[in-house]
């Protein structure tokens, strides 16, 4: 119910509902159907069962849709808080087997390295206009560089973003990004940079998009990875590009394990990375015992985090931390904030009604980037 108004789906719960009435109900409506906080998911077809599959921490990962009697329409109504953005799929059960599919009635999709999900945009959520191509914003360029890394004993490709008005006579701050390809492909980071620079919300900036062939190992507090970034990549970039040579103009960023890699690298080189942007960091720790519930993949992270939590020190100057409230990691991220804050580092923490996904990280880029590197907006009056 929305106040005293019955939900639209209840009109089908009358005797005599048939295929024609279902057709009429579905016609012209956008699904999932949002009526205030109530969201109704529907799927139509023959099946033994249909489940809503999502990644909202705190709710059952599979929630069954109900079949409307005498029809092939399956539905589920959930109470979803305002401003939420939820990625989901349907699991359709046939012949005892489940098939995960995108919602055919919902045009909203989010792509990620594993494919795509349907997206529920609850009342109050709007995809940010600064994340899509703006014809007024001059596009920066992206070129590929190849590095031979002694630390990593191999070659690494780095995609370099240069701002539209790049000039060799100027100096620029540097952002180094973990999981660079994913940030470019799934978080629209090039468009975001172009737009935020155009809007004066961040300064002209040079961005190095890095990737790892073995991220779960290299990003989990790895000494060689930290050395590569700090002692090899940055000096090499400084020789090629006009970069400011000061910690305040160096930002390291990443999401999930990429955030762990960023933070652990900053801890190994305290004072070098003056800005950190950490999204949904996998900052697993234990208060007792050495193994976290998340399993052995996290053992090195837990060891690192427990050590840091035991003796927190300032390793950077300004840190932006964000996390979705529908992520299991919200607990770890919320726990990090007072710890970091107490060291004297400036910390900004932002939560969103979203999950552990690339569009959540995209949606926080404006607040994050403008926090670590405020643009000339406060300086330009014309």
């Amino acid at each position, binding site marked *: 119910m929305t106040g005293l108004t019955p939900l639209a789906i209840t009109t089908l719960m009358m005797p005599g509902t048939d295929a024609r009435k279902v057709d009429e109900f579905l016609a012209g409506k956008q699904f999932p159907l949002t009526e205030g906080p109530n969201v109704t998911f529907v799927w139509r077809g023959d099946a033994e069962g249909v489940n809503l599959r999502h990644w909202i921490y705190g709710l059952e990962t599979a929630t069954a849709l109900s079949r409307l009697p005498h029809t092939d329409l399956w539905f589920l109504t959930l109470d979803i808080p305002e401003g939420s953005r939820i990625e989901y799929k349907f699991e359709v059960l046939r012949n005892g087997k489940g098939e995960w599919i995108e919602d055919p009635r919902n045009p909203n999709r989010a792509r990620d390295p594993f494919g795509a999900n349907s997206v529920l945009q609850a009342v109050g959520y709007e995809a940010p206009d600064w994340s899509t191509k703006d014809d007024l914003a001059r596009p920066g360029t992206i070129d590929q560089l190849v590095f031979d890394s002694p630390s990593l004993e191999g070659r690494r490709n780095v995609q370099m973003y240069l701002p539209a008005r790049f000039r060799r006579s100027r100096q620029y701050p540097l952002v180094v990004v973990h999981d660079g390809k994913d940030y470019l492909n799934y978080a629209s980071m090039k468009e975001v940079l172009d737009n935020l620079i155009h809007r004066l*919300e961040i300064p002209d900036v040079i961005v190095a998009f890095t990737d790892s062939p073995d991220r779960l190992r290299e990003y989990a507090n790895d000494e060689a990875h930290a050395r590569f970034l700090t002692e090899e990549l940055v000096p090499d970039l400084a020789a090629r590009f006009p970069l400011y040579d000061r910690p305040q103009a160096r930002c390291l960023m990443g999401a999930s394990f990429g955030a762990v890699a960023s933070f652990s690298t900053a801890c190994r080189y305290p004072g070098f990375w003056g800005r950190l942007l950490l999204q949904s960091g996998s900052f697993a720790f234990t208060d007792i015992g050495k193994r976290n519930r998340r399993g052995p993949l996290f053992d090195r992270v837990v060891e690192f985090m427990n050590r840091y939590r035991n003796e927190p020190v300032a390793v950077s100057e300004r840190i932006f931390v964000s996390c979705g409230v529908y992520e299991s990691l919200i607990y770890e991220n919320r726990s990090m904030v007072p710890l970091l804050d107490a060291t004297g580092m400036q910390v900004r923490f932002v939560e969103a009604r979203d999950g552990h996904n690339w569009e959540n990280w995209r949606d926080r880029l404006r607040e994050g980037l403008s*926090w670590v590197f405020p643009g000339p*907006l406060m*300086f*330009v*009056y*014309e």
Partner: protein
Amino acid sequence: MPKAPRAVVLLGAQRFDPTLVEAVKDLGIKGRIAAITAGWQEREEEDDDLEEHLATLSVTTENLRLHARAEEVFRADPEFHKAHRERQALLRHRQDFYRIRLEHALDAAQVIRQRQAPEAILEDEAHASIQAIRDLDHMHLSRCAIDRGEFEDRYRPLKRPALAKHRSEIAEIIAGSEGVAIAGGHVASLLNRLDLFGIAPMLGGKAIFAWCAGAMAISERVVLFHDSPPQGVGAAEVLDAGLGLAPGVVVLPQPEFRLRLDDKERVQLMARRFAPAVCLAMPERSRARWKSGRVESQQGGVFELREDGTHALSVARHSVPPMKGHVAS
């Protein structure tokens, strides 16, 4: 004491609906106007629109090219360039540390405002909160002045041949102009170039037209502000002293999208913080004219922020003893 300008006219934004010609016409100017567009930085010489706008009155313009000239000076005098860069880095540190203190003072004011206490105590503490912020502003301005003095004593910019040559050319152009138009743009960059070439003493007897960052730069105190920046609620901050040609006011351009005028607490804080100077919001098409150190006329919707948290159309009555600026005195 340097000769005062003939008149100083502050204007609202000129980008979409320029009103400069009206102000120029009112002062009966028919000769050349020297243009300063250094706030546009590398785009400094893209001033065709300005030129065409003034050409409707048959007034010609000559761009002083302060940004480009500074680059030429830096190329010709590497030692000075290095020193200038170091000074800019120092200014950034100063601004950063001032901002940290300021944010804490504003937070403290907010916490105190939420507390329950007898009204007289709250009122007294509110004054103390404002005073603490004013003290920080004052300390920041003092430090900027000391840093500037030390830099000038050490490097004697105006005596350096590369710079002196340009300064002499600039002075000649201004001397042969009836007025000087100072456009907006990046206010720190603009102020830096005005300061670098010691422009203020050259403006005596001239009609000065300034808008947006230009208007801020020639006031006595440059206040950076934006109530809704992307990184959260913004705190207005003092950048530095301006040229001091428009005394008694803090110029706030583009209030249409920079100020939250419905937020009484923010308006009140701004007005009290900078008093006795008046916070003058200057929307598009607005205009205010100074003569002999006081506002002579205003039109087009100039309004002022009041200490009770309201705002209202301003009337021409401001005559406040100027602060000690770094160039005007």
